[in-house]
């Protein structure tokens, strides 16, 4: 994926992403057929189980995206001095992965709440996983807010990278504290609807959905990366024009 991004930073479309895009649409269509029509209803959960084909892969991919953000941020901090682009490649990767991660975390929350309404009878309960996920969502929304602020590109990238690392370190702390909180107070919570045994056709459908979501996410990250790159190119071009116009003006006045 890195090479696909790298070699074509100057284009808005390439053969690779076009193939990936077509693949994403085809895979999604098949996923819809498999998930909504072909796969059977669950014995316990009935039709609601079909929500999990979106819900579960979404959170997997969200976590994957956040890991990518963190790894890119570490690479940014470590390599920025040695690289010609001052590590901005990693910064762009971190930013685009985080945004896609936030989108999929949002999808996880919405589908999870709908699933909960059918299965538990309530949209929300203070389940450890739900609580952690919503905190994850807010944390990375903050990260994106920090990235959006006007600042010198290098300062902004630096701040963002540090924040990405702190957030990543914080995820397990949040998770374990919330998890521990809930397990200590099981009585207080509603009886948690058991997640269904996923076997046979359901298992394969879930696995296939995960593959589909991965393709979609990869395509999104690549394109988002390019948009960031294009924005930077636009700024650089404007800057170069400014420098040359300033130089010309001074030469003229001399």
């Amino acid at each position: 994926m890195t090479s696909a991004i790298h070699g074509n930073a100057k284009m808005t479309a390439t053969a690779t992403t076009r193939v990936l895009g077509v693949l994403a649409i085809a895979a999604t269509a098949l996923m819809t057929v498999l998930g909504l029509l072909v796969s059977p209803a669950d014995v316990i959960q009935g039709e609601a189980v079909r929500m999990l084909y979106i819900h579960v892969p979404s959170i997997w991919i969200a976590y994957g995206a956040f890991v990518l953000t963190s790894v890119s941020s570490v690479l940014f901090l470590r390599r920025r001095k040695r690289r010609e682009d001052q590590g901005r490649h990693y910064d762009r990767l971190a930013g685009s992965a985080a945004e896609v991660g936030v989108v999929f975390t949002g999808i996880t929350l919405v589908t999870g709440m709908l699933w909960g309404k059918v299965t538990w009878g309530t949209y929300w309960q203070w389940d450890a996983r739900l609580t952690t996920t919503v905190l994850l969502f807010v944390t990375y929304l903050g990260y994106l807010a920090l990235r959006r602020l006007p600042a010198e590109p290098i300062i902004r990238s630096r701040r963002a990278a540090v924040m990405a690392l702190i957030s990543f370190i914080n995820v397990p702390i949040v998770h374990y504290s919330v998890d521990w909180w809930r397990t200590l107070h099981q009585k207080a919570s509603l009886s948690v609807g058991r997640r269904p045994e996923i076997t046979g056709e359901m298992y394969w459908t879930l696995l296939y959905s995960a593959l589909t979501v991965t393709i979609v996410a990869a395509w999104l990250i690549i394109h988002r990366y390019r948009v960031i790159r294009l924005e930077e190119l636009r700024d650089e071009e404007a800057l170069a024009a400014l420098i040359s116009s300033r130089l010309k003006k001074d030469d003229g006045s001399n």
Partner: protein
Amino acid sequence: MLAEILLVARKDLRVEWRAKIALGQVAPLALLILVVLAFALDANSSLLELGAGGLYWVAVLYGGTLLIQRSFDVETDDGNMDAFRMSVIGAPSLFLGKSLALFVQIGLLELVLGSGVAVLYNVRVVDWGLLLVAAVAGTIAFSVCGVLWGVMSAGLRVRATLLPLLLVPVLVPILLAGSRAFETALGVRADAGWTWASLMLVIAAVHTAIGLGAFGFLLEEG
């Protein structure tokens, strides 16, 4: 290094002593929050007693965030950040010095709030040791996180709104652990208060380590 830390902390505390923002404005406001929270719960005394630990930390979060803002408003005012960067004080000392000053200020705020909770919510302390350890650990974590995020949002136009957004998710485990530990210390819950308190110490240590490593890096411009 210790001398540098104390120099920075002394300066911050002296600024506070002269201006009296923490004691004169933030503490009364935080007390007011305690009153408003009682309104929200319809002054139900048994609910208030049960929730005292959590409500205390909510009020600390509110007042502490204001103190963190103030701590960095002082540095960004009149271009002070430049003088900060031009000084010979090392970044780790700056970080620890500012954290120490915030620790003292938030600690004072907590003393006021603690008395407020004791009076308004009618609580009794059954384990002073736990209460103290949890309060100290929570305050350390609060201070170091505050300085870390404070410098990150310093000089930004939108820092008044951005700082809480960045700070609160990181502080969630502290608030959670603090609330539980206080509940045990106040005798409303027999749970593992000490384990929560030690979790708070671990979190405080983690963020101190991050701050020591990242502060200098975040302080520089361009």
